[in-house]
């Protein structure tokens, strides 16, 4: 019994639910009034570094950040 559930348009375009949900949240945050908008954008800032591992050794990390380098 193959599943024939209708696929949402974003999934048929190759997007995952998390990406869809995050895009929706960002659009809604954009439509806030000040000062709530500044608070929301501040709250959602991220700062992290990712490094891939090859042969048990970490490679050069890439840093993803929304905070300006002081």
């Amino acid at each position, binding site marked *: 019994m193959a599943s024939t559930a209708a696929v*949402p348009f974003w999934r048929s375009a*190759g*997007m995952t639910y998390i990406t869809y949900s*995050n*895009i929706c949240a960002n*659009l*809604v945050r*954009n*439509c806030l009034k000040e000062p*709530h908008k500044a608070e929301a954008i501040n709250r959602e800032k991220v700062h992290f570094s990712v490094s891939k591992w090859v042969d048990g050794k970490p490679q050069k990390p890439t840093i993803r950040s929304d905070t300006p380098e002081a």
Partner: protein
Amino acid sequence: MFRQVAHRLLTRSTTNHSACAAATILRPYSTDVSTDASSGDSAFVEAWKKVAPNIDPPKTPIQFMEPRPPTPSTLPSKLTVNFVLPYAAELSKAEVDMVIVPATTGQMGILPGHVPTIAELKPGLLSVHEGNDVKKYFISSGFAFVHSNSYADILAVEAIPLDRIDPAQVQKGLSEFTQKLNSASTDLDKAEAQIGVDVHSALNSALTG
């Protein structure tokens, strides 16, 4: 493989036929399992007492947890709502009369005694009705779980009260994304533009409606 699944689903509750009973693994539904584990696993406690009768058996994690509120036999008068966001709990065990959530299948009203449901939410208006008060929030997306004991868990990524929405931004966004939708080429661009149009038109109708 799917034929076996269908067979198992059909024979789940009928245990008369002994051959079927031997073949199926019977697992109870979560609402049938006793949630009061304060006395601990009896088999473990007995085995412990045989080995170390003078020492109290250690507590397992489930004994530290609050048991799930039981399903009352009569219809409760109020719905208990937990409305949570990733960064804050908007409502925590609030007793209300009714909640209307924007499910993907349309506006869904949840009253006490609602059938257990899992609903995916689309960008739209959520309203909490308590007596004569109605609190409205605009939700970006999320899920709503209704349990058999009249508890409703509403999870949203963003929820903003209507008076914090900037109408000018909404109009600007709507026209911008309608334009992007017309000029979009790849599937992904079309999907993103469509999402933009959906969210902004939902915001628009929330402001005007």
